[in-house]
């Protein structure tokens, strides 16, 4: 259980600088530096601020991960780095660091897909814990401030299919924007969650994007949150015009319910349509308790087995990137070489960049 390639993974696609080290599927280190506090005053991720923070954090984060794992650079088998999708300027910091690391340490380098990294998180386990059995194929729902994607994963290394994704805002972004409308702090996920706990989820019926019969033909597994955001804005405006205070808790609870409802309904519909009775959740929005509850209840009712990795492996992190690198090494896949660039819109079907 302690075998497998020793891989260091670097993640810098959004606002977390992550460095993880795995041995096979065992997580030896998972160190994350976040610029979320610097972003808070702007109510969203500012790419230039994120990129500056990555540059300052990258070396200390690498050093901490190596110290935590207690491994020597010379003992590593490979280095993996997120090549996309993500913010180009942010990705470039990680790729620059990873290339220099791999070349000076004379290790092979894998430029990998961030979204497939999220899926890999499910297979990782803490040192001393029982390995988690690999359950494939699976439908995977990845929800964060940057992405909302529904995947069918038959094989991590060479068979990941995009079923659908958001056509506008990511779900986490919708939380951030709605929080701002309601005067709640950034990031929106936790602050809306806190307000929603005191509100009624059925107080206001907000729209469920792309769930109408006419949308189901072309966008059965796609998401759209811009209509929901507009509906919340309109509601807040009307309440203000009437002179009545906005029932922030009720709006938060009803908004959250609409998001969760669409996410879970589409994910379980994908399980039904593909005949795959397994659903994996990933991404930072998984921290949302209501999402986990609704997914658990409805998956159970639908006879779908639900898997949710521990939260520190759900948010953006380097361990999942290292984990994907380890899988590629195990599968005997040739490394990326030194000449690849970042791809901010790397398609999910492309697990490795060259």
């Amino acid at each position, binding site marked *: 259980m302690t075998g497998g390639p020793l891989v260091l993974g670097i993640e810098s*696609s*959004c*606002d977390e600088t992550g460095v993880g080290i795995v041995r096979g599927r065992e997580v030896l280190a998972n160190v994350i530096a976040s610029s979320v506090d610097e972003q808070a005053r702007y*109510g*969203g*991720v*500012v790419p*230039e*601020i*994120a*990129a*500056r923070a*990555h*540059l300052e954090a*990258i*070396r200390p984060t*690498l*050093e901490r991960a190596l110290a935590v794992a207690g491994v020597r*650079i010379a003992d590593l088998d490979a280095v993996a780095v997120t090549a996309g*999708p*993500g*913010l*180009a*300027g942010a*990705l*470039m*910091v*990680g790729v*620059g*660091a*990873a*290339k*220099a*690391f791999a*070349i*000076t*340490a004379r290790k092979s*380098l894998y430029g990998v897909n*961030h979204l497939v990294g999220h899926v890999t998180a499910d297979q990782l386990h803490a040192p001393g814990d029982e390995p988690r059995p690999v359950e494939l194929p699976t439908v995977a729902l990845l929800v*964060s401030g*940057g*992405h*909302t*994607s529904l995947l069918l994963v038959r094989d991590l290394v060479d068979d990941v299919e995009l079923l659908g*994704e*958001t*056509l*506008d*805002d*990511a779900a986490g*972004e919708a939380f951030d924007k709605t929080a701002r409308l309601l005067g709640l702090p950034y990031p929106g996920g936790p602050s809306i969650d806190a307000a929603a706990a005191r509100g009624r989820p059925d107080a206001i019926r907000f729209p469920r994007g792309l769930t109408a019969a006419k949308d189901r033909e072309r966008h059965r597994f796609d998401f759209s949150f811009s209509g929901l955001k507009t509906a919340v804005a309109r509601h807040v405006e009307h309440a203000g015009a009437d002179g009545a205070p906005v029932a922030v808790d009720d709006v938060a609870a009803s908004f959250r319910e609409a998001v969760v409802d669409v996410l879970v309904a589409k994910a379980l519909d994908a399980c039904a349509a593909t005949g795959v009775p397994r659903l994996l959740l990933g991404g930072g929005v998984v921290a949302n308790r209501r999402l986990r509850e609704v997914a658990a209840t409805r998956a159970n009712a639908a006879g779908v087995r639900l898997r949710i990795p521990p939260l520190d492996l759900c948010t*953006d992190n380097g361990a999942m990137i290292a984990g994907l690198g380890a899988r590629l090494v195990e599968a005997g896949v040739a490394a990326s*070489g*030194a*000449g*690849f*660039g970042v791809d*901010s*819109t*790397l398609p999910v079907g492309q697990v490795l960049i060259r």
Partner: protein
Amino acid sequence: MLLAIDTSGATSVAVVRDDGTVVTSLLDEDVRAHAEHIGLMLEAVLDRAERPAIDAVAYGVGPGPFTGLRVGMAAARSAALVLGAVELPVLSHDAVALAAVRRGLEPPFVVVADAKRRELFATVYRRLDAAALPVRETEPTVGPDDRVPDLTRVVGAVDAGLLGVVAALRHAAGIPPEQQEARYLRSPDVTIATVKKSVLG
């Protein structure tokens, strides 16, 4: 032996001896593909120098376009960690100034570089120090053309070889290195990331 990296404009990687002689230096003028070039050039330079023992990594801290600048800085810091080498940050314009002096130009002069938005990065050099290195009169500035001091203008790509020479000679003379922070000289633009077609983060 020093490894030197600069991506403040072009991409350049070099290996330089402690006495300030250049072993090998590569420069790619493409100002768009730093992340792609840095790996291949680093590999080529280290191989060409026959993988020497490196005890210092010099790197340009700008000024220059931010996105590219960071690629080289991140690479240099990570290389220094792996190699157990000291970091020797260098103001990128110092290498351009040294190139000018070696071409026979005498200070005073001003090194300028395009800062976009109809502005220039500018650094004024007034004299040479004991090691015959050009000495800055002021820290670099960013501003419109008409604010640049009326001196001979020097432009040119930053050669990591000369950047390494500056670092090596200063190090040998016991002059402390620059602050390691990137010389952005501008506050970050505040535009919230919006995901047009899914996919980031």
